[in-house]
C-alpha cells in the first residue's frame, strides 16, 4: 500500500498545474429536481475558494461530486489533475475532506481516530505521531488524545476532524460547512488555521453560509438554486455591486 503514487509528497505533477480544481457544465439531478445546474468554475492552486449559498443551494452536492461520493448526471471536472467521472479513486489519496456533519468515531478516543484515519491513508504509527506533533501547536491535539471523542466539546471535535483530514498532507482540502454550530472565537481560530494551510500551498475548497467567513476567502462563488450567480474575489464583488457587505450582495443576488 505504500506505493509512491499514494504518497502525497510525490504529487509533483498535480502541484505543477495552475488549477487544483476545474469544473465544466457540472450538473446533478435527483429525479426531476436539479440540485446542481450546469456550473463551471476553476480553483487556483493554493487558493481558499469559498462556496457561498443558502441551505439547499447545491453546495454539498457539488462537493460530493468533486470528491467521488456522487456520480455527476452530466458535465466534467478535474481535481488535482484527475477526471471526476473516471479517475475518482486517483483523486482520493490527494484530497482531505471534512463533512458537514461531524463524522469521526465517537466511541474511539481522539488519538485512536487520528491513528485510524492516518493508517487508512497509509501512514504508520510513527508518521501519525510525527504529524500530531507538527499539528499540535495549532490544533492542541495532545491535550485531547486520550479523551473519548463523544465527550469532546464541539470546537475540539471540529479541530480533530480537521486534523484527521490533513494528516496525510493532502494538496487539496474540501471543507463542507466546517464551522457550523461553533462559537465565534473557535471559528476565528479555525479560519486562522485554514489561512495558514493555504499559505503553505494547500488548496482549500470551503462551503459556508456564514457571510463574515466569506471575507477569509481569496475568491468566492455565490450559489443560488443550483447555479453560480457570481464568482470573484470579495473586493471585486463588492466593487461590482457597489455594496460594502457580502451579506447585502448575497441577499441582493438571491432576491433578484
Amino acid at each position, binding site marked *: 500500500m505504500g506505493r509512491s503514487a499514494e504518497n502525497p509528497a510525490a504529487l509533483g505533477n498535480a502541484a505543477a498545474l495552475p488549477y487544483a480544481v476545474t469544473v465544466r457544465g457540472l450538473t446533478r439531478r435527483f429525479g426531476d429536481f436539479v440540485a446542481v445546474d450546469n456550473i463551471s468554475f476553476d480553483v487556483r492552486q493554493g487558493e481558499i475558494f469559498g462556496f457561498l449559498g443558502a441551505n439547499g443551494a447545491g453546495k454539498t452536492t457539488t462537493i460530493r461530486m468533486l470528491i467521488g461520493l456522487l*456520480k455527476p448526471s452530466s458535465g466534467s471536472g478535474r481535481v488535482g489533475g484527475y477526471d471526476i467521472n473516471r479517475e475518482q479513486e486517483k483523486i482520493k489519496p490527494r484530497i482531505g475532506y471534512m463533512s458537514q456533519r461531524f463524522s469521526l468515531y465517537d466511541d474511539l478516543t481522539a488519538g485512536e481516530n487520528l491513528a485510524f484515519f492516518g493508517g487508512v491513508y497509509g501512514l504508520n504509527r510513527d508518521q501519525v505521531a510525527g504529524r500530531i506533533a507538527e499539528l499540535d501547536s495549532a490544533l492542541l491535539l495532545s491535550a485531547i488524545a486520550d479523551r473519548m471523542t463523544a465527550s469532546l466539546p464541539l470546537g475540539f471535535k471540529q479541530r480533530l476532524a480537521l486534523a484527521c483530514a490533513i494528516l496525510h498532507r493532502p494538496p487539496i482540502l474540501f471543507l463542507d460547512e466546517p464551522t457550523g454550530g461553533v462559537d465565534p472565537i473557535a471559528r476565528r481560530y479555525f479560519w486562522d488555521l485554514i489561512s495558514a494551510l493555504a499559505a503553505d500551498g494547500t488548496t482549500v475548497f470551503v462551503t459556508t453560509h456564514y457571510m463574515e467567513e466569506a471575507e477569509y476567502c481569496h475568491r468566492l462563488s455565490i450559489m443560488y438554486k443550483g447555479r453560480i450567480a457570481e464568482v470573484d474575489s470579495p473586493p471585486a464583488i463588492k466593487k461590482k455591486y457597489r455594496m460594502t457587505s457580502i451579506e447585502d450582495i448575497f441577499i441582493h443576488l438571491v432576491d433578484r
Partner: protein
Amino acid sequence: MNKIWYLVIKELRQVMRDANMLRVIFVVPLIQLVVLGYAITTDIKNLDILICDFDGSSTSRELIERFSHNEYLTVRGAPCKPNAVEPHLFRGEAVVALVIPMDFERDLVNNAKPEIQILIDGQNSNTGAVALGYCNRILLEFMQDVLEKRLIRTPAFARSIQFIQPVSRVWYNPELKSVYYMIPGIISILLTIITMLLTSLSIVKEKEIGTLAQLMVTPLTSAQVIAGKTIPFALLGLLEMAIAMTFGVLWFKVPIVGSIPLLAMLSATYILTSLGLGIFISTLVDTQQQALFMSWFFLVTFILLSGFFYPIENMPGWVQVITYGNPLRYFIEILRELFLKGAGLSVLWGELFSLLGMGAGIFILATLRFHKRTA
C-alpha cells in the same frame, strides 16, 4: 493488508467498548441457549386423555388400565353421558378422548365387530397425530393379547401362528433426546444472528452517522472496507460458536462425535455466507431499522425452511427446491451430522460446496453492489 488491519482493530475496539453490544453478543445467546434448549422439544409427554366407559365391563376396565400405564398419557375420568365428551375437548381439558360403547365386551366375545371411538383435538395437528399414534399402539397390543388368549383355547396347530416382534435399535441418539437434535440447531441460528445482523447493522450505522462517507473518500477500496467489516464479525462469530458449543456439551451433555477442526472449518464457511448476506443487506437499506427488518425477513425464512423445526421431507416439492438456496439448511445438516454421527468430509462435501458456492456468490454480489460512489 495493513489498512484492513486498521479497520479490524477499530471495529473490535468499538464492539468491546459497547456494553450493550457485548451483552447482545455473549450473554443473550447463552440465555437463549439455556431457555430454548429446555423449551424446544418434540417429545410429546403427559397428554391428557379422557376415557368414557359406557361398557363398564372387565374387558373395558382392562383396556383403560393399559392407557393408565402408558407414560405418555394421563387418563382423566369422564361422566358417561351421551355427548359429554365434546365440551371437555372444546375447553382443552384433554387432547384426545376415548369412548368405549356399551356392549363392547359382548361384541368382542361374539365377534360382532366391537368398536371404539377416538376423538382428537386437531388444532395442533402434530400433537393430535402423535396422540392418535399412542392410542393405536395401545389398542393394537390389546387386540394382539386378546387374540393370543383365544388361540390358546384352539387346537395345537393354531398355536404355531407367530406374530412379528419388531426389535428396534435407535442409532446416533439412542435415547431419542430431542435436546441433542435442537442444540446444534439453536447454535446455528445464534451464529446467523451474530454474523448477518451485526454486520449489516454495523455498516448501516456508519452510513447513518456519516463515517461511511468519510471512509469512502479515503483511498480504501470497497474490498478493503468489506474485509474490514467482515473479519471482526467472523472472529466474533467463531468465538461465540465455541462458547455456545462448550456450553451445549457441558450443560446439556450434547455429544460431539465428529472432528472439531472440521467443525470449525465448516462453520467458517457458513459464516462467510452469512456475513456476505449481512453486507448485501447493508447495500439495500439506509437505516438500522430497515436493516433489522430485512435481516429478520431472511432469518425467519431461513429458520422455517431449514429443517430445524419442520422436516424438509414433509414440505411440498417446490418448497423443497427453495430450501436448496438456504445456507442454514446445509449448516444445520452439517452440525447434526457432525455432532451426533461423527460424519466426515466424505459425507459432508456436498454441504461444504453448496455453502462455498453460495458464500462466494453472495460476496461477489455484495461487493459489486457496495459502491464507493452513489449513482
